[in-house]
């Protein structure tokens, strides 16, 4: 009996796999997700169809994330693009089984202490959203266009260090992608390797 249920779940996984296969390459449709924000509200990606969306995979325990917050870089980006109607969603996909897991209240408090200005901070304690996006690192950034297609997938910038001083002098890929896309131009760098701490699956 158990064998048959294993077979069923395997089959289901095999059938679902092709649907997800091309999901995160630039140009492909961004995978749907429904997560709960730190205030307890349910947030779906589909809620923001028609707007540019930035997904920021985050984890306050990660020095590479802290690099972009202590330097003020991340908050600046959030404010800069929030003012231009871009929906910024920060997602913590640290598994509830990890030492680094943060409760919604802890996440809200940390973001507040940093003066963060995203639309919402989402808790993904099963890492399901991270898996569907193949998010590898914190930070790992995605830019999604108003039609729900992935415009950019990768690192926040080209300085692969944990030094806060580098954040301001780096070439910021998220800013570049949004600027180009909003000007009606193709995104020059649409895919890079993220750098940072691994997501705590």
């Amino acid at each position, binding site marked *: 009996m*158990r064998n048959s249920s294993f077979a069923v779940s395997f089959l289901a996984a095999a059938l679902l796999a092709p649907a997800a296969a091309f*999901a995160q390459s630039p140009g492909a449709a961004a995978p749907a997700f429904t997560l709960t924000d730190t205030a307890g509200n349910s947030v779906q990606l589909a809620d923001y169809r028609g707007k540019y969306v930035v997904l920021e995979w985050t984890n306050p325990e990660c*020095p590479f994330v802290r690099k972009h917050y202590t330097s003020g870089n991340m908050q600046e980006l959030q404010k800069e693009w929030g003012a231009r109607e871009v929906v910024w969603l920060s997602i913590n996909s640290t598994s509830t089984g990890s030492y680094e897991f943060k409760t919604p209240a802890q996440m809200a408090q940390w973001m507040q202490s940093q003066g963060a200005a995203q639309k919402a901070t989402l808790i993904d304690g099963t890492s399901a959203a*991270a*898996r569907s996006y193949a998010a*590898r690192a914190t930070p790992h950034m995605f830019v999604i266009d108003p039609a729900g297609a992935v415009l950019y997938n990768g690192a926040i910038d080209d300085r692969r260090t944990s030094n806060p001083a580098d954040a301001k002098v780096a070439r910021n890929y998220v800013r570049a992608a949004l600027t180009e896309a909003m000007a009606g131009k193709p995104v020059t760098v649409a895919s890079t390797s993220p*750098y940072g701490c691994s997501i705590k699956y």
Partner: protein
Amino acid sequence: MARPTFLRSTLHALSWGAALALALPCAAAAVRTEHVEAELVAARTALVPGEPLTVALRLAIDKGWHTYWRNPGDSGLPTTLEWKLPGGVAAGPIEWPAPHLLPAGPLLNYGYENEVLHLVTLTTVPDFLSGREVKLAARADWLVCKETCIPEGADLTLTLPVANAADPDPRWGKPIAAAKAALPQPLAGWQAIADGHGATIALKLVPPAGAADPGEVRFFANVIDRIEPSAPQPLAREGNGYVLTLPVATTLNGAFGKLAGVVTAANGFGGDARAATIDVALNGTVTAAPRAGLPPPPTLNLAPAPASAEGLGLALAIVSALIGGILLNLMPCVFPVLSIKVLGFATHHDTKPTLHHEAIAFAGGVILTFVALGLLLSALRAAGEQLGWGFQLQSPSVVVALAILFFVLALNLSGVFEFGQLAPSSVAEWSSRNRMVDAFGSGVLAVVIASPCTAPFMGAALGFAMAGGIAMMLTVFVALGIGMALPYVLLAWFPNWRKRLPPPGPWLARFKQLLAFPLYATVIWLAWVLGAQRDNDAVLRLFAVLLGTGFALWAWRIVRGGGARPWGIAGFVALVGTVVVAWPLFTPDTEPARAANMTSPAAAGDWAPFTPARVADLTAAGRAVFIDFTAAWCVTCQVNKRLALNTDAVRADFAKRNVALVRADWTRRDPAITQALTALGRSGVPVYVLYRPGKAPLLLPEVLQQQTVLDALATL
């Protein structure tokens, strides 16, 4: 070689002399950061102008932590070295040892654990002359990660004499030579061809004639954005060689004309080499692989274990339950009660029928309590609760109640009071009917305090019971009860066996008092369990309750013994106070379940807390995984931990075989753990399971011995 001039020779001689006189051929200070000890070390005792010198950045990394290779894989950063050298000395690049695979969930990183020597070749101009010493300085930066990542770095220096001859460094000469010999080299005699097509590269490796099977092969690209780090690399035998299929990175940017990296083989490439460099032209053109989602967390891929419920027939389950029940008497939590019962037999020399009736009443108490527990458990499970055997102790209120019960029993054995003194004297009159009630009560008590223990054979039977219907469950529980009561019934029926017990005497009173101590120990243990379930405050509260209870009982004895009335009032006040203090302990714990891994022993040391996804990812990454299903309230678990799992030999073997250690702490209710236990055909702790790559998982017995664990590991 240096061109000797008189002045230089003299200076060299002087520097040599100075160095020897100081007996410090080189001076380097190791820098200790939070998780790493870093230093610069040299292969030789002096720098010889014109001759290359191998130095190394040595990182001694804390256990469980790792640093990264030149290509860190899915995340992380490579270690860097920035030299500050005097003119005339130049440093080459880091000569990287072959990396290890470091799985992090579904991700894969490349790096190093324990100790690593990053070799660098220094070259010196032949006419280098900079005094009698040369100071080699470097800034080293590395990222060290376990779960958490910490960027660390150090400014390191190494001061060496400059001389025209040098000896191998007594401390580092050999390790550096060994590290150098182990560096991946181009494959001698092998042919490597890389053909790109679409989003994959076929790396064909043709061995020289007669080469042995290389075993599992893995390719590590020298730079990021070439080969997808975490993707599987299937190996196929094809014609006269092997074809390793490499998925192109999803992040490929720019031209990819050359395939350069390190290839490792589990069984080596013939000779000693297990790692070799590859640097070949890439034929054809490739495209970035489409970015796909990571594999979904498999619904805990706990393949049916050998002793699963299905494998156990009803008859076998009943026999297992019987034997389990008998062995339950010997479990650490039951032993004091066993002693009290044996004591009862030793003190009463009654007629056979009385003894028989008493034994039957005891057995009845045991069996009915088991049945009641079984009914309660099945009712709760039917209501959708994820529960298993031992569920009672997952509730802090039950733990508190048991602690009070054990404390009262212990005070009784210590002689602080007699139960008869508490009851009105008419009831205290010893009648045979009361003896029946007492025996029945002992049976109930025995089961209540046995509930934290799972005896050998019991686990499989209970797992079977939980998987079946209510009738099957009750059958198994009745069998358990019969098994547990059997030794006493036999003692009652066969008086000859009883004769072996020593005759009553003054020793009896002392023995009774002695038995109080295991019970006090049990109270200590229950307090510890409560601490793991709730917090320090709860433990303090429990101790206050015990204090009050002890005082009330003592005062009551004075009153019963004809003492002054105020003592009775004092006792009553203590009792009321006790109830008030105890009350919050019996209210539901409203605080959100604490992240158990933060405080419980589960998170200790090398053990990672259990999540189904973690186990699935580790097994998917080809790691052997050992899961310890445990709970603070499970004494057998604690004994096993101490005597088998935490021994040096077992820990060393776990480390040697790179077994991932996972601890599933069931001290509090945890549906995920209950489901995992059910999948293993069990319903209680302890359960020990070893997942072996490519083989069926192995269930270990409930009572572990060091050798059992070592034998299981030997099957990997």
